[in-house]
C-alpha cells in the first residue's frame, strides 16, 4: 500500500515503511523543551514568512505558538499531584478537516506538545495556504512526524489505524461515521470532533450605547467570527440572538447592519453570484417551511433571517455559509436554553456579564455549549476544544506508588 508522503521527504512510499520509521523515533514526554523549542521556531518562521504573515488565520497560529504562550500552556499542566506521570499516547493518527487550512497544524501541534509520534493525513482538497504552511514545517526537521495524503482507501486508513495508539478525527459527521467503521488497534483510543453549530449573543442596549468607533470595532470582530472561512467553520456563528427589548433589538440591529456593510466593503469581501443565490434561496426556504418574520436581504453578502421573538431555530440544519444568520430576540439570556443541545459548540457574547454566563452554564449543565468566549474570538483555538482537554486526550498516565 503506497501513500504520497509530503513530509519529511515528498515521495510515494509504502505506508508500512513510514510507520516503521515512526515506531523507531525516540519518545518525548509532554511539554518536552525540545518540542516547545520546535513549535516556538515554527511561530517565528510563520510570522516572518511574507506569504503567511498576511493571512489572519496563519498569524493566529503563529501567535498561539509563540514561546510565551507555549510556556503559559505548559504551566496549565504542572506535575500531577498524585505523583503519577503524564506520558504520550504513542503514535497519533490525525485526520484533520479540509475546510480550515490551519486546523491540521493545531491538531499536530497539540499532539507534539503531548509528546506523540504523529502521522497526519492531509486532504487533497486542502487550500494553498496549507501547502505554504507545510513548507515551513518542513524546515523544522521534525523526525517524529509524517504528513501524507492518499485517495479514499479504507485499506490504508485501516493499516494506519491498526498501528496507531490514538486516532483524531475532525468531522463532518459523515467523515466521522466513515472512519469510525475502520477498526482501531484494541488498546487504541479515538478523539472525535463532530459537526457543530455556533451562536452569537449580543446585548442590544450595549450595542446601542457604543460610539461609532467602538461599533466599527465590533463589526470588525463579528466579520472575523462569521466570514473568515465563509462561515463554514464550526465555530463561526450561524445564529444571532439579541438580548433586550423589541425596540432596542431593532435599533441595535439597524446600527450593526450598517456597520457590517461598511466593514464588508472595507475588507473587500465578495461572494460569488452562485453563493448569493444559494443564500437567498436558503432564506426563502426557511420562510416556506416555518414561521419567519422577515428576510433582510438588502445585500446578499449579509442576510438576516428574522425568526421573531423568543428562542427559535431555523426549520432545517442546511446552511449555505458566507454570511447568513438566523436571528431571534429574547428578553433574558436564560430564555435561550431551549435552543441549546449537544450540537452547540461556541457561544460568542457581547455585553453579557460573567455572572449571567455562569448561570447559563449551570442551567444547561452540559446539555450543550462547550465554550463561551467574547465576540471576536470564535475562531481562537485553545487546548480545551469541543469540551475536551486535548492534552488529556492525547496522553496517558503512569501511576507510580513507591
Amino acid at each position: 500500500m503506497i501513500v504520497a508522503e509530503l513530509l519529511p521527504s515528498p515521495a510515494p512510499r509504502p505506508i508500512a515503511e513510514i510507520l516503521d520509521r515512526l515506531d523507531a523515533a525516540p519518545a518525548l514526554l509532554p511539554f518536552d523543551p525540545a518540542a516547545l523549542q520546535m513549535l516556538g521556531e515554527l511561530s517565528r518562521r510563520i510570522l516572518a514568512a511574507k506569504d503567511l504573515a498576511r493571512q489572519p488565520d496563519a498569524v493566529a497560529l503563529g501567535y498561539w505558538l509563540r514561546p510565551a504562550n507555549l510556556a503559559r500552556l505548559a504551566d496549565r499542566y504542572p506535575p500531577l499531584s498524585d505523583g503519577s506521570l503524564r506520558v504520550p499516547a504513542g503514535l497519533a493518527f490525525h485526520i484533520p478537516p479540509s475546510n480550515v487550512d490551519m486546523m491540521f497544524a493545531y491538531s499536530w501541534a497539540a499532539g507534539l506538545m503531548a509528546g506523540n509520534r504523529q502521522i497526519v493525513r492531509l486532504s487533497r482538497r486542502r487550500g494553498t495556504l496549507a501547502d505554504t504552511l507545510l513548507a515551513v514545517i518542513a524546515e523544522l526537521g521534525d523526525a517524529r512526524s509524517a504528513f501524507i495524503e492518499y485517495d479514499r482507501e479504507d485499506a490504508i486508513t485501516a493499516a494506519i489505524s491498526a498501528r496507531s495508539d490514538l486516532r483524531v478525527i475532525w468531522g463532518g459527521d459523515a467523515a466521522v461515521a466513515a472512519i469510525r467503521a475502520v477498526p482501531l488497534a484494541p488498546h487504541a483510543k479515538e478523539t472525535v470532533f463532530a459537526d457543530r453549530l455556533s451562536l452569537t449573543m449580543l446585548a442590544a442596549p450595549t450595542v446601542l450605547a457604543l460610539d461609532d468607533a467602538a461599533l466599527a470595532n465590533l463589526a470588525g470582530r463579528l466579520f472575523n467570527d462569521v466570514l473568515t472561512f465563509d462561515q463554514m467553520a464550526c465555530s463561526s456563528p450561524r445564529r444571532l440572538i439579541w438580548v433586550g427589548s423589541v425596540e432596542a433589538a431593532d435599533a441595535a440591529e439597524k446600527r450593526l447592519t450598517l456597520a457590517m456593510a461598511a466593514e464588508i466593503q472595507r475588507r473587500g469581501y465578495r461572494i460569488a453570484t452562485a453563493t448569493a443565490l444559494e443564500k437567498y434561496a436558503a432564506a426563502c426556504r426557511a420562510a416556506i417551511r416555518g414561521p419567519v418574520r422577515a428576510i433582510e436581504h438588502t445585500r446578499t453578502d449579509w442576510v438576516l433571517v428574522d425568526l421573531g421573538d423568543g428562542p427559535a431555530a431555523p426549520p432545517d440544519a442546511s446552511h449555505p455559509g458566507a454570511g447568513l444568520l438566523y436571528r431571534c430576540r429574547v428578553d433574558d439570556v436564560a430564555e435561550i436554553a431551549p435552543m441549546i443541545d449537544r450540537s452547540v459548540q461556541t457561544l460568542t457574547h457581547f455585553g453579557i456579564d460573567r455572572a449571567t454566563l455562569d448561570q447559563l452554564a449551570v442551567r444547561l449543565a452540559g446539555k450543550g455549549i462547550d465554550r463561551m468566549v467574547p465576540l471576536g474570538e470564535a475562531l481562537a483555538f485553545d487546548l480545551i476544544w469541543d469540551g475536551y482537554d486535548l492534552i488529556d486526550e492525547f496522553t496517558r498516565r503512569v501511576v507510580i506508588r513507591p
Partner: protein
Amino acid sequence: MIDPQAHPPYGVPQAQKDALLLEQLVALTAHHRGHCPPYARLVQALGGPVPTRVAEIPFLPVSLFKTDLLTSVPEDQLFKLVTSSGTTGQAVSRITLDRNTAALQSRALAAIMGDLLGPERLPMVIVDCASTIRDRARFNARAAGILGMMIFGRQHFYALDDDMRLDVEGLRRFLEKFAGTRVLLFGFTWLVWKHFAPEMAEAGLRFDDAILVHSGGWKRLADEAVDNASFKARLRDMTGIATVRNFYGMAEQVGSVFVEGEDGLLYPPWFADVIIRDPLTLKPLQPGEVGVVQVLSLLPMSYPGHSLLTEDLGVIEHIDGAAPARYGKGLRILGRVPKTELRGCSDVAAARLSA
C-alpha cells in the same frame, strides 16, 4: 385569468405591457397567497409595499421547486405533475398543473409557435428517440417539450434510435417523401449538435427548406466553445438547415418560452417578461448590464411560479428596439451562474472514504 392569444405575442409595447403585467401579477400573487400557505409565508417574510412596479413583485428562487412541493391546487384537481429533466442523481423540480393551467400553456405555446411557423402544420422531424416520450415513468420536461411541440407538425419522424444514433434510412425516406416541402425540426440543442448534425453530414443527407427550433441550454456547447452564431453556421454546413431558432424556457414556466428573433435575441411574449437583477443587491439592472435572470409569466395559476429568480445570467440588449416586428425586451442569455464550492466542516477529505 388571461387569454394568451388576446394579443399578437410581440405586439404590446413595453410601457403598455408593464401596466398590464403589473395588474395581473399582483392578482396572481394574491391568488397564490390565498391557495398556497407556504408561499403566503414567504411573501409575508419578504415584506415590502404593495407593488407599484413589476420589479416589486416578490420573486421565488427557482431552486425551491426542487426541494419543496409548492402548489395552489387541491390534490383532486391535480392534472399532471411535470418534473424537470435533471441528470441522474440531481434533484428535479416538481410542478403541479391543473387542467386550466395546462390549457393556458398550450394556448400560449400555440400563439408563439403560430407566429414563428405560420398557420400550416409542417412535416416534422423530432431530433430524439421515440422512447423518450413512450416511457411514462420517465416523463419529464424533455418529453413534455416534445409532446408540446408535436402539435405544430404532422407526419412526425423520430430521427434517433434508442442508442441515440441517426436513423439514416428512415431519414432518407422522409426527405424523399417531402422533397420540395418546408420541414420543421425540433430537438434539444445538445442532441442536435452532438447526435444529429454530424451523422447527417456523414450520411450525406441534407434539407433544402427547413426550420429548426431548439432549446435546452448551451452549457455543454459552451464547454466546446460553440456559440449561437457558430452553431448556426456549422449546422447549415452539416445539414443544410437555413433557419435556426433557439428558445429559452423552463419546466417551471412551460408555455411562456422566449423565442429567438431575427436579431438573435430572445423575446418574451406579451404575457411574460424578464428582469435582470444585481446579484449583490437583487435590485433591477439597466439594459446593457449583466445580472441574474428573473422570469415572469401570467400562465402559472396552479403553482406559485409567476415570478422566478433563475440561476441563469443574462443581459437585456434593448427595449422595444426591434419594433414594430417585436415589441418588448431583447434578451441575451449568457449561461448558468458558475457553480462555487464553499468547503464546510462536513467536507473532510475522509467524507468520501467509504463512498
